[in-house]
């Protein structure tokens, strides 16, 4: 890619994505300030919001096409027989799909040669622009990235706060995904929120004294303005080119989720859920801030990278911390271990004193953990996962948006985006946290009966999967699952929303059942989602051009399990990181099918609900169908499909080749090649687990051969433990809330008897002093001032006699004055 082409494409992408980013903001502003004129019964706000986000989607899609074109992704290998591809990939390192190592490899087929050639040229260009001497190396970690600055907000000494952009394949893909899902959710919400189109909305969940319900004006436009702002914040986060900007939008996302979760603010549960979500996030953000401060203190910049060949500006974080071949440049051991920073020329960066700049390795770990702490909060990882189920208090479209495309995705996205900054130690922590989260979420989901909460815990579990994948070196697997999960989870949420809407805001699955004939579209679109998340596939069937016949979830989960298996095999001490996800996969299939069967099949448990149930209008089912199509096919081709290939273009350099055992903990990360070797093995195991879970659910809840109640009684204590959500809330209560209360009481006591006493004493002293001061003031100061005033006044008074108001007298005075002046001059200045 020549430099001009590079800049041209970068400019095109920048403006397309900027439009897509800013449109929701414009929509938000118009909706907020224009609501006064549109009225509460108007759908104008919704149409505007849909228009904005849909236009954003169009722009993003164009950007995606531009990207595919620019990257020269032909997908030609997908069209061949997948078995042949598998064979071929045995020969080549999977890393050929990314930028690494092209110069050293010979290529068998034409497509690969083209691909390699394009990359080589690009690498040369980038190299030449950066002024490096060695052309043969031809390796630029960030050569497929466009960065730049929109606007510099402020500069305080060394700290530069600016609005940057960082565009690579992941950014473009996330934009397309987010805008598409958001569009669907917006459209869905037009139908779902139509209750609010009134001047007098009766909230049945708010009970006033006297058995009445709370009445308030509808908040249709407010809902949509919040949605628009939410989309704006999320897109800004994705587009952000520096970590500080990410933090800004990170917080904005938090605020929006707060506003939307607490949309029914009069409901106690909703407002406390909003508070909980917000505060939990603050805990994580504390870590984020610590990481931020460490990074800025040691690196002196926030920006991710600077790849613009026209600018020889500052070096970005990613470029500093990784060498050209993507490795950390460390030295020393223990606490003395340092990581050297790299310049753009593949050399060590020199500080002002000439010595190479370096950051202590442990601080790099702390910074990574801090940033990941933010991700824990945002993505509801253990131990901060408890806010997410409570967040179901918001309207269902909000749940769909929060749990699929935006809020929780932000954490995973940031982990993926910040991947170059994470050391193996951090990755291990990430993996374990993800693993625990996945297991906890899945087990709780087994026993929950609220349809939305099932999905919520499922989300926690799946997020844990993603984190696990990222932690064990499966960068692609984790983000792949993020995208596929976004589709099917939003689909399922919208389906549940449709069910809830059809059942008149009944969310308890124990009152549903047999709804399939009543709402067929919802039922079967949800089935697609359930199958997708369960990771089911038709065993053994590998079609040409398509690969395994399965919905999107199969491919992504397959990738995760394969990565985990490889990781476990390379690091036997951490083999738990493979078995727990495997078990969890089975559990996932079980509880998702449980939910589906309980809702749509069997006998109606509550005749009243069943009688009034109805299919939702097209405005709600339309998005379901659209999303279900994507949930089904978006990952076709698996790891060789277009989606994965697209993501591979922006994979960090060091991931593909894996990492040899290193560091204190001796962690080894798998390479693509090794993962590929374990693919089929892991796929079989995962599929097996999923089938087991599905069959058990079928037996329990559809055929009802075994009564679930019996099982519940048998394992009553476990069930109770699970129903109590592993008693996290109680533990937190004991660990944090009660101590805080006790400390608070101590503080009150100290305040009352210690500080207040001192303050009162001081106050009395001040009063005493002031009394004396007043006397002094009155006796001396005032008197002096009065004397001056009186003298002035009496002087002026006596001088009024001269001011006669007579014109002629004044003239006389002037003349006499001049004469006197001259006389005086003559006397005192004789010549």
């Amino acid at each position, binding site marked *: 890619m020549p430099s001009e082409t590079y800049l041209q494409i970068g400019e095109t992408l920048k403006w397309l994505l900027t439009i897509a980013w800013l449109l929701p903001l414009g929509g938000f502003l118009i909706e907020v300030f224009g609501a006064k004129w549109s009225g509460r019964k108007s759908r104008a706000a919704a149409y505007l919001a849909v228009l904005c986000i849909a236009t954003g989607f169009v722009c993003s899609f164009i950007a995606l096409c531009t990207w595919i074109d620019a990257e020269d992704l032909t997908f030609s290998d997908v069209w061949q027989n997948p078995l042949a591809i598998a064979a071929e990939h045995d020969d080549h390192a999977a890393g050929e799909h990314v930028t690494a190592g092209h110069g050293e490899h010979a290529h068998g087929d034409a497509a690969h040669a083209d691909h390699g050639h394009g990359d080589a040229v690009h690498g040369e260009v980038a190299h030449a622009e950066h002024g490096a001497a060695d052309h043969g190396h031809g390796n630029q970690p960030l050569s497929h990235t466009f960065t730049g600055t929109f606007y510099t907000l402020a500069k305080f000494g060394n700290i530069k706060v600016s609005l940057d952009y960082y565009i690579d394949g992941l950014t473009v893909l996330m934009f397309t995904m987010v805008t598409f899902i958001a569009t669907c959710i917006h459209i869905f919400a037009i139908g779902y929120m139509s209750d609010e189109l009134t001047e007098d909305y009766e909230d049945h969940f708010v009970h006033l004294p006297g058995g009445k319900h709370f009445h308030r004006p509808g908040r249709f436009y407010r809902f949509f303005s919040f949605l628009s702002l939410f989309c704006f914040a999320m897109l800004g986060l994705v587009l952000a080119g520096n970590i500080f900007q990410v933090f800004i939008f990170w917080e904005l996302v938090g605020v929006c989720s707060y506003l939307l979760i607490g949309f029914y603010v009069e409901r106690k549960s909703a407002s406390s859920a909003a508070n909980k979500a917000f505060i939990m996030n603050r805990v994580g953000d504390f870590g984020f801030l610590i990481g931020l401060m460490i990074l800025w203190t040691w690196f002196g910049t926030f920006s991710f990278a600077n790849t613009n060949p026209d600018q020889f500006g500052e070096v970005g974080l990613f470029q500093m911390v990784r060498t050209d071949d993507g490795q950390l440049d460390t030295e020393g051991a223990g606490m003395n271990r340092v990581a050297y920073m790299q310049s753009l020329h593949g050399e060590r960066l020199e500080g002002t004193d000439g010595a190479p700049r370096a950051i202590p390795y442990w601080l790099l770990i702390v910074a990574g953990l801090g940033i990941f702490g933010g991700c824990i909060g945002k993505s509801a990882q253990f131990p901060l996962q408890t806010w997410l189920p409570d967040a179901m208090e918001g309207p269902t479209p909000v749940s769909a948006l929060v749990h699929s495309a935006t809020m929780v995705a932000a954490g995973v996205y940031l982990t993926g985006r910040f991947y170059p900054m994470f050391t193996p130690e951090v990755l291990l922590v990430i993996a374990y946290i993800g693993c625990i989260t996945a297991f906890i979420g899945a087990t709780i989901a087994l026993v929950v009966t609220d349809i939305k909460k099932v999905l919520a815990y499922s989300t926690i579990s799946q997020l844990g999967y993603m984190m696990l994948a990222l932690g064990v070196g499966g960068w692609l697997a984790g983000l792949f699952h993020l995208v596929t999960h976004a589709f099917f989870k939003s689909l399922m949420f919208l389906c549940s929303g449709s069910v809830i809407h059809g059942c008149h805001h009944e969310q308890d699955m124990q009152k549903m059942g047999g709804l399939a004939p009543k709402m067929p579209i919802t039922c079967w679109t949800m089935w697609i989602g359930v199958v997708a998340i369960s990771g089911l596939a038709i065993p053994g069937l590998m079609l040409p051009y398509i690969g395994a016949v399965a919905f999107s979830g199969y491919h992504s989960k397959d990738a995760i399990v394969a990565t985990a298996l490889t990781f476990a095999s390379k690091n036997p001490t951490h083999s738990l990181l493979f078995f727990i996800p495997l078990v969890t996969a089975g559990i996932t299939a079980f509880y998702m099918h449980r939910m589906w069967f309980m809702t749509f099949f069997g006998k109606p448990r509550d005749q009243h609900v069943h009688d009034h149930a109805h299919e939702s209008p097209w405005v709600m089912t339309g998005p379901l169908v659209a999303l279900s199509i994507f949930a089904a096919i978006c990952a076709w081709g698996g790891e060789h499909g277009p989606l994965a290939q697209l993501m591979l273009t922006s994979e960090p350099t060091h991931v593909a080749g894996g990492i040899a055992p290193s560091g204190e903990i001796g962690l080894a990360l798998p390479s693509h090649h090794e993962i590929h070797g374990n693919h089929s093995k892991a796929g079989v195991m995962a599929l097996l687990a999923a089938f087991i879970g599905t069959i058990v659910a079928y037996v329990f809840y559809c055929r009802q051969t075994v009564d679930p109640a019996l099982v519940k009684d048998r394992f009553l204590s476990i069930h109770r433990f699970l129903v109590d959500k592993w008693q996290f809330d109680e533990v937190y209560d004991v660990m944090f809330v009660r101590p805080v209360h006790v400390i608070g009481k101590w503080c009150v006591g100290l305040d009352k008897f210690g500080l207040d006493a001192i303050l009162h004493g001081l106050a009395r002293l001040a009063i005493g002093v002031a009394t004396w001061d007043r006397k002094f003031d009155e006796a001396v100061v005032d008197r002096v001032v009065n004397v001056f005033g009186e003298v002035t006044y009496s002087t002026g008074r006596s*001088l009024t*006699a*001269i*001011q*006669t*108001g*007579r*014109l*002629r007298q004044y003239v006389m005075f002037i003349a006499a004055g001049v004469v006197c002046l001259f006389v005086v001059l003559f006397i005192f200045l004789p010549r």
Partner: protein
Amino acid sequence: MDPVGLSGYLTVGAVLFVCGVICMATKRNAVGVLMGVELVLNGANINFVAFSRHTALGLDGQIASLFVIVLAAAEAAVALAIVLNFYNNHLTIDVDRAVELKG
């Protein structure tokens, strides 16, 4: 006989000036005061023109006196309008009656 030099003209100017000042100081008639002002201005004008002739001032003096004449005419017009107003208010043009500003 020596030609009249600068001092002769300056003397005439001084006399006119002083007479104008006396006029201003003694006339109770507002128009009389105005005439005094005109005299003062003329005294100054004589000086201007005399200096213009007898020093390096050149035409600057003449031009200055022209401006003085023109502005004096303007001043007279405005002053007369004020006198008329004064007359409308007090039914006299005795400036001694205008003592509203007495301290």
